């Protein structure tokens, strides 16, 4: 266990900064949901956001691909840079941003279309494939990356809503990677899944680290410990502590983190 963690520390040290957030504030109407959060998220790393429910971790995640734009009353202040570009710059179209920053949601949300069309949707709207063969190839590659190809390859044209919960979530992950994003945001991707499906998805997340910067929101500390290299602990809208996963779980600096990890803040 300790060996593995030291290895992870070396890995993260070698990565570049992918997302740089500085003094981010989010307001929902009068509620101050995120208070002055600054964080650097590394490339080719799984970063976990943990914290009690309502602590703002999902809200912050949704800032990273500007999904908060879809909520009328939400206001975001501060700077978030991805690859050095300010994503809240007026010249940046959220469409462009979201093509680069994929997202997987808490509940699997396949479109009421065939499995093939679910995967092909992103590439189609963005015009990533010029021919049918190219599209077929993207679909197959994405489903393989989503570790679901073997289960669905014979029924690509059946509706995606007919799959089991775990399969649906992997389908959604495959759908998200089909547009070749550089960052993958996951908002409690396993909360609606049974333990077996969770294990499959967690294995998949570890796989995805090779190509993407993965940010995962979870309220399962075990899951954060299992899949992430870096962990950020949020509490009441504040970023309390952000360190190597191994360190935060074994040697938390902040009293609040310790209380949470030892089960005193629920």
């Amino acid at each position, binding site marked *: 266990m300790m060996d593995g963690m030291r290895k992870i520390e070396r890995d993260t040290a070698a990565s570049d900064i992918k997302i740089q957030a500085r003094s981010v504030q989010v307001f929902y109407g009068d509620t101050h949901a995120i208070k002055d959060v600054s964080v650097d998220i590394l490339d080719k790393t799984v970063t976990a956001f943990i914290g009690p429910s309502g602590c703002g971790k999902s809200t912050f995640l949704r800032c990273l*691909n500007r*999904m908060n734009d*879809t909520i009328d009353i939400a206001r975001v202040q501060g700077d978030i840079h991805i690859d050095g570009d300010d994503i809240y710059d007026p010249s940046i179209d959220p*469409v462009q941003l*979201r093509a680069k920053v994929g997202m997987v*949601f808490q509940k699997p949300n396949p479109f*009421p279309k065939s499995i093939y069309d679910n995967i092909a*949707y992103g590439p189609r*709207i963005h015009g990533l494939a010029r021919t049918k063969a190219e599209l077929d190839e993207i679909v197959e590659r994405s489903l393989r990356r989503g570790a679901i190809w073997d289960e669905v390859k014979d029924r690509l044209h059946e509706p995606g809503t007919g799959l089991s919960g775990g399969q649906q979530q992997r389908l959604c992950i495959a759908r998200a990677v089909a*547009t070749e994003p550089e960052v993958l945001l996951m908002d409690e991707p396993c909360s609606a899944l049974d333990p077996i499906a969770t294990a499959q998805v967690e294995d998949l997340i570890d796989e995805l680290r090779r190509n993407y910067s993965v940010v995962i929101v979870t309220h399962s500390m075990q899951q954060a410990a299992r899949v992430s290299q870096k962990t950020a602990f949020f509490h009441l809208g504040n970023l309390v502590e952000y360190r190597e996963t191994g360190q935060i779980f074994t040697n938390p600096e902040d009293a609040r983190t310790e209380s949470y990890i030892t089960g005193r803040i629920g």
Partner: protein
Amino acid sequence: MTTFAFVALLCVSVLGYSLNRHAATRLRANGTRLHSVPAYHGLYSLLSTMVPVVTLIVTWLMLQGPLIDRFTMSGLPAGSLDSLDTGGRQLILAEIKSISRGRIFGDPEAWKVDAADRYVRMHAISGWVLLGTVIVASLGIVGFSRSRVAAEFRARHGVERITSGLMLFCSTIAIFTTLGIIAALLFESIRFFERVPIMEFFFGLNWEPQIPLREDQIAAEGAFGWIPVFLGTLVITVVALFLAVPVGLLSAIYLNEFAPSRLRAVAKPVLEILAGVPTVVYGFFAILVVAPAIRSFGATLGIPVSPNTALAAGTVMGIMLIPFISSFTDDALSAVPKSLRDGALALGATRAETVLNVLFPAAIPGIVGGILLAISRAIGETMIVVMAAGLIASLTVNPLDSVTTVTVQIVTLLIGDTSFDNPKTLAAFALGMMLFVVTLVINVFALRIVRKYREAYE
């Protein structure tokens, strides 16, 4: 006299209520433990008096009119009704009735005045007998229920049984209404088909419901083929949908996805107002504004437009249907789970792409159901077409021509004509039956689609 009967019933039932209540209170005062509180004993008496006696009065009133009419007619001197058809007999009856009300025109024959006297007398007798029966029956029931007041009598259960029965009766009204519609349409249609061959009605290409008023009159036989009439209905419906479907869909999409919340707050009530405008107002709007506008527009283009063009009626009907379709689309779009919208947006779809590729296909069943209901509404819509469409049936699909519709024909055939024995009036019922069947099929189908769709997302 009917009023007296109701007043008597009311008094007796209230009397029964207080009798029973007092009796029960006295029992309790003597230290007996009652099963039901005194008020329930009173209510029991009240309800068991009211329900049967009101039923009696209503039945009496329903039967009294036709029976007295029949007695009046059969009591006329022999021979006075010879060589008269049903219409003629009804005229005589109407004359007798108007004499009985004191409205005398000219110098009626003596036998008519006699008959009117008898008519008045019979009504008076019937009223007195009714009053007597009501008093006797209600007093009897009150006496009976008074005798049942006892400690162990379950008055509350009795009251609840009666109210349950009443509520059950209320809910059967819907069934009776449907049965009444079917019976009325079927019965009169059968009488129509006794006079006009059924094949001619269903497959005939001519609709000319003029019939000779006198034997010797030279007139067309009258033709009753419903195809041109139905075709006219379809032409107007299609014009209406051409306007209402795109406008309704687009405005719902805009309100649901793009509109700033302040516009939405204004637009929804505006659409509701548009939906609440009575159709007779739309009809007047058609003749006051839309038809002249279309005619003058056609004139500037050099196209002859008939005054009762299908286009005008269809356009106004389309305006009427806009809020209908837009509210169904709005509901259907709102029912699509938010997660699907988020999923598409997170993939980098624009809002337009999200609506068109993901939300809209997911909402299609609900929208189709709404459009089907709109079609059924357009087919059954009456006032707009009565006021703005034509009267002459013609086999045309040109919206600039004048066409007639099923509902227009029903109304024009029945306005101002009372007798039920000529093909002209009966034809209206045959058309009504077709209208009922067509709209029923569409409605059942549409409601099924809408319900299935709702279940899918619940």
